[in-house]
């Protein structure tokens, strides 16, 4: 789960046949519904959320959603204009002008405009039409606009812009036939360049757009009364922050009260399956490899799937409904005190899932120093790869006692504490960076608050399916490979055809060799091996421990939870989760930091800083707990 799902599309080679459309670019302002339309047209599942700036890179798919898988669709980041103001706008302009290496130059454009705010969105239509590519203008969300007493004369708009115009709803899938007809035509049939007035600055685009919307009888819809009414409560001086806190606490409590029984049931199912398969295999090294090695390792991590999905279901509802932007508004005061751009809040918040897409989404931050500071602190946010080890240690060592009555249990409180630890580390580091090497004047905070929307089951379902796929894939590849290697290393050298004791195996020797370094933290050598393997990705440690404890006769018959409780002291256990909260253990993140900062210096600094901090904090944790508890 250390990375978003990559999508590979083969780009057809060969000469272009003149006049035929082969590559289409999808263009539109932020939050205009482009990504939803892209998913519908291609059948791909791109993340869609109700806040601006979700797409930060171009994405490529085939138009298979309307039965034209011979055509390529490129989804571009949302842009307000073609004058590149931030990194994501620059990407869009490069692709449109055919200057993006590796991306085919588009022959046609689908321009998506949110009909709820048409007069302002039209400001983008001028420069896009001026590119001279055949363009179909899609007025998105016309159903909602018309339901709220808005109207527009789409025929007059088509005449005004000299380009075809279609009313669509990307969410409901209406109007897709207009796209099919458009892409089937020859380019010269639809290519009628627009004579634009000489323009250059925002004010003149604005004037032109206002003129067009007046002449096409555009009437903006009434703003949703529901949004205002909800904001009156959710952004209330006293209720706002209280509701924000209640939402966060409920989120974590639910992971334990609802998720734990699901996880336990799933574990019983997996154990049962392992036993049944094991009984079919002849006793010997194959059974040992498959059951004690691979199955114990892989199932140790799979059991956390229900809890992770539950967490993402709740977070998905918050994102899709539009509450996240309000959370950013409530948190802005804190962010400013630290010296971070308010916009940094959204990358930081999306890093609870995975730091990789979060780091890419920092491209919406215009100020370079602000952006680097955000990239450097993002991996401190508690990503979902940390959840398995947190849940394992908490379930093994923390009693399930109520803290605030039935509202907050001790386990949820510890989990919340670990999330806070990561957040505080991120803020403190940002403060440090901003007052030293990345000093900059504070960039402005400009945040669009979207209307509240009811999350759709389809969008939530796709999101969960995506998470589950990434998680299972990681268990089936990286973790599978690591457990295989571990099993092998823990069974050599053989003595006269007999497997060695775990402590005498190669892996045991390696563990004992590094043990002096980690003993002050309260870790034993098995944990040490876990720390080494989890440099690949954090969740690998649970698979590693599953294999190591499963292969040890002393603990082989216990559940992983019981085995860890048997082998670690409270101090070492808490030190372990503190270490995981702070350490940089993710090769995918290091790679994306290198790509985004264009230098090895920043990922190297980040790795050393986070590892040293994690070591010192874990050391302090173990020493304090051992001495005082």
């Amino acid at each position, binding site marked *: 789960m250390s990375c978003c799902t990559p999508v590979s599309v083969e780009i057809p080679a060969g000469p272009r046949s003149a006049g035929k459309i082969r590559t289409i670019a999808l263009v539109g302002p932020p939050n205009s519904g482009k990504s939803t339309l892209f998913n519908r047209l291609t059948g791909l599942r791109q993340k869609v959320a109700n806040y601006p700036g979700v797409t930060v890179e171009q994405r490529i798919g085939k138009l298979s959603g309307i039965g034209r898988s011979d055509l390529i669709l490129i989804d571009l980041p949302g842009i307000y204009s073609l004058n590149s103001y931030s990194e994501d706008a620059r990407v869009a302009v490069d692709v449109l002008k055919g200057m993006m290496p590796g991306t085919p130059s588009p022959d046609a454009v689908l321009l998506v405009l949110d009909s709820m705010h048409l007069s*302002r969105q039209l400001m983008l239509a001028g420069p896009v039409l001026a590119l001279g590519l055949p363009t179909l203008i899609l007025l998105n969300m016309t159903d909602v606009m018309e339901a709220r007493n808005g109207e527009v004369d789409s025929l007059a708009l088509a005449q005004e812009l000299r380009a075809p115009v279609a009313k669509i709803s990307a969410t409901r899938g209406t109007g897709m036939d207009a796209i099919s007809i458009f892409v089937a035509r020859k380019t010269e049939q639809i290519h009628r360049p627009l004579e634009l007035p000489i323009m250059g600055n*925002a004010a003149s685009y604005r004037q032109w757009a*206002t003129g067009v919307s007046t002449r096409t009888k555009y009437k*903006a819809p009434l703003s949703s009364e529901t949004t205002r009414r909800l904001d009156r409560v959710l952004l209330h001086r006293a209720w706002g922050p209280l509701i924000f806190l209640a939402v966060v606490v409920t989120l974590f409590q639910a992971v334990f009260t609802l998720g734990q029984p699901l996880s336990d049931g799933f574990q019983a199912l997996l154990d049962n399956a392992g036993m049944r398969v094991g009984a079919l295999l002849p006793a010997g090294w194959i059974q040992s490899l498959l059951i004690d090695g691979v199955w114990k390792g892989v199932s140790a991590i799979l059991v956390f799937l229900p809890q992770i999905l539950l967490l993402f279901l709740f977070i998905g509802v918050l994102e899709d409904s539009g509450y996240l932007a309000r959370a950013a508004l*409530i948190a802005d005061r804190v962010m400013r005190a630290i010296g971070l751009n308010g916009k940094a809040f959204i990358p930081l918040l999306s890093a609870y899932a995975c730091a990789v897409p979060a780091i890419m989404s920092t491209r919406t931050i215009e100020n370079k120093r602000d952006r680097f500071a955000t990239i450097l602190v993002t991996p401190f946010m508690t990503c979902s790869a940390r959840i398995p080890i947190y849940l394992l240690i908490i379930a093994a060592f923390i009693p399930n006692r109520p803290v605030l009555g039935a509202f907050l249990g001790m386990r949820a409180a510890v989990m919340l504490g670990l999330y806070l630890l990561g957040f505080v580390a991120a803020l403190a580091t940002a403060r440090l960076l901003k007052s030293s090497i990345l000093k900059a004047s504070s960039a402005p905070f*400009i*945040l669009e608050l979207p209307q509240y929307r009811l999350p759709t089951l389809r969008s939530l379902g796709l999101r969960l399916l995506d998470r589950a796929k990434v998680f299972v894939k990681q268990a089936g590849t990286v973790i599978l490979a690591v457990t295989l290697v571990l099993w092998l290393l823990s069974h050599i050298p053989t003595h006269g055809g007999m497997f060695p004791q775990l402590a005498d195996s190669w892996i045991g020797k390696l563990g004992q060799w590094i043990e002096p370094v980690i003993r002050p933290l309260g870790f034993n050598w098995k944990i040490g091996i876990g720390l080494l393997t989890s440099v690949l990705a954090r969740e690998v440690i649970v698979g590693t421990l599953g294999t190591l404890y499963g292969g040890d006769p002393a603990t082989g018959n216990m559940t992983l939870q019981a085995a860890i409780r048997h082998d670690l002291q409270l101090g070492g256990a808490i030190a372990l989760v503190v270490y995981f909260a702070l350490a940089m253990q993710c090769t995918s993140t290091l790679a994306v930091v290198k790509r985004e900062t264009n230098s090895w210096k920043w990922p190297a600094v980040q790795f050393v800083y986070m590892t040293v901090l994690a070591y010192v904090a874990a050391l302090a944790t173990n020493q304090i707990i051992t001495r005082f508890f």
Partner: protein
Amino acid sequence: MNQAIPPTPVGMIRLMALSKLGIGEEAVVSRLDLPEDVQYHLMHMGFVPEARVTALRRAPAGDPTVYAIDGLEIALRRDTADAIRIRQVGDARPVPKS
């Protein structure tokens, strides 16, 4: 409405900072005293001269403030709103329809 804005002497337009606009009050954007790139971004969000802007509500901590402009709700910190100059709705210059 607009009691917070003192009456304008004849023949003179009195400008004030957007940050001084009271909640629920409406005004007209007059000028943006900001670096060009920021100005550009704001203009695309609707903050153009002659646009009508209403202060909707303040964030729980008192800052940023949410403004309604051109059918959108945009939150700005006080230091940004300080640099946006506004004038009273009825004042001087004809306001184009928008």
